[in-house]
């Protein structure tokens, strides 16, 4: 049987600016004791069944920690479910005197990195998640 490939949703550049990033509410955050400027972010891993079994046998950790410092921390904290991607871009323009395209490229790359690590999810404007828990969102 030939599976039909699901078409990826296409966002034009203007629409992209109005998308809203939301934090994964299952992520634990706390400032590092030794250095309070560093924010530690812990995300629970969701491995597939085979990998989960292997991890259980090997007693591997089922979570991953990231340290956010400086700009990466500021940007993560600005992801509050209200600020749009454009708002985040404008923060970089205002605070660091970057140009629009520089700021846009850096912000999108950073948000993409956070998404890959399961720390945030970016939704189109007007699409408010029923639960801010990313795991539930993915299960749907």
């Amino acid at each position, binding site marked *: 049987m030939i599976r039909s490939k699901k078409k990826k949703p296409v966002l034009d550049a203007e629409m992209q600016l109005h998308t809203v990033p939301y934090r994964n509410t299952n992520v634990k955050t706390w400032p590092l004791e030794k250095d309070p400027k560093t924010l530690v972010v812990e995300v629970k891993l969701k491995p597939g069944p085979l990998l989960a079994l292997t991890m259980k046998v090997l007693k591997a950790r089922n979570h991953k920690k990231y340290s956010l*410092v*400086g*700009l990466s921390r500021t940007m993560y904290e600005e992801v509050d479910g209200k600020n749009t991607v454009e708002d985040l871009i404008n923060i970089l323009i205002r605070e660091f005197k*970057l140009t629009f*395209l*520089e700021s846009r490229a850096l912000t999108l*790359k950073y948000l993409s990195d956070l998404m890959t690590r399961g720390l945030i999810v970016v939704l189109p404007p007007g699409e408010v998640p029923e639960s801010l828990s990313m795991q539930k969102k993915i299960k749907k």
Partner: protein
Amino acid sequence: MVRLHHPKPPKIEGFSQLGWYHILGFVPDNWEFTHYGIDEGEGRLDFCNREWHQARFSWKKGKEYRKPDLDRTLAEFHKRYLLENHKEEVATFSGMSTRQIGSFLFAYDKPERPCQAACYIEESKTVMFWTFPSFSEELLRNTFTPILESCLPNDAESRVWSAFGMSFVLGKDFDLEDASILPADASLMFEHSNRQQMTLHRWGLPSELLRGQDLKIFYYRILGGLKNKVMTMEDSIYKGMPSVEVTLTRAGTHAMDKLYGGEWSGSGRIWHNVEEQRLYAYEQAGPKKVPPLKEAEIFS
């Protein structure tokens, strides 16, 4: 006739300088490059802002280039556009309205249609085009006219380069060999016909780049990554800004061969423009017989 000094177009409010191979002029402050060509013979520069594509500047140089019929060339370009987008109008198309703005012949058809301007530089046998995606009288008055009026041929013995936030003057014999343009991290690499090399950098987010390290350590790492051996580093003040002066050596080349090239010595400097929140740097190196460029002449 070869001009010895580059022209100085008058500054326009809300516009910043553009200098690239054959052109020297001004473009709106918020226009940014989204494409650049590093070939002197032929290439293009694309400009975007928050509202996306704004203009394209292109050039073509030819040894045997006869003076082109600009009027006809512009009409031909527009005819091709009509063929692709408004076939029904091709049969009735009789030509474009033209007017001379500065050194450019500006041609337009209807509002909201693309318009173009062309100019031929006899001395360097180069034809230059500006293409704007949409025409309106307001855009013509506020944007196109200041750009076209400010544009002058950049064909003096010393050529002005003004792009990606950097502005400097280099001899006409320096060719742009390579460019690495990343967000808030731009580098332009030039090489002279006598193999003298010059690299210029501009970085944004200095507070992030210098977190946990000073200018010296940061620049030392950059130079190491570019295969330079740092000989001396000295803190100094450059135009009232904190800076670090360096002397360096790097592997030279003999023709294309690196084995017989020996070691070239060079110098460089990094400085922190606190007000702009940018770091700037340059390095130069070359064969022993080639005298180094003077800093005051590069950033005059």
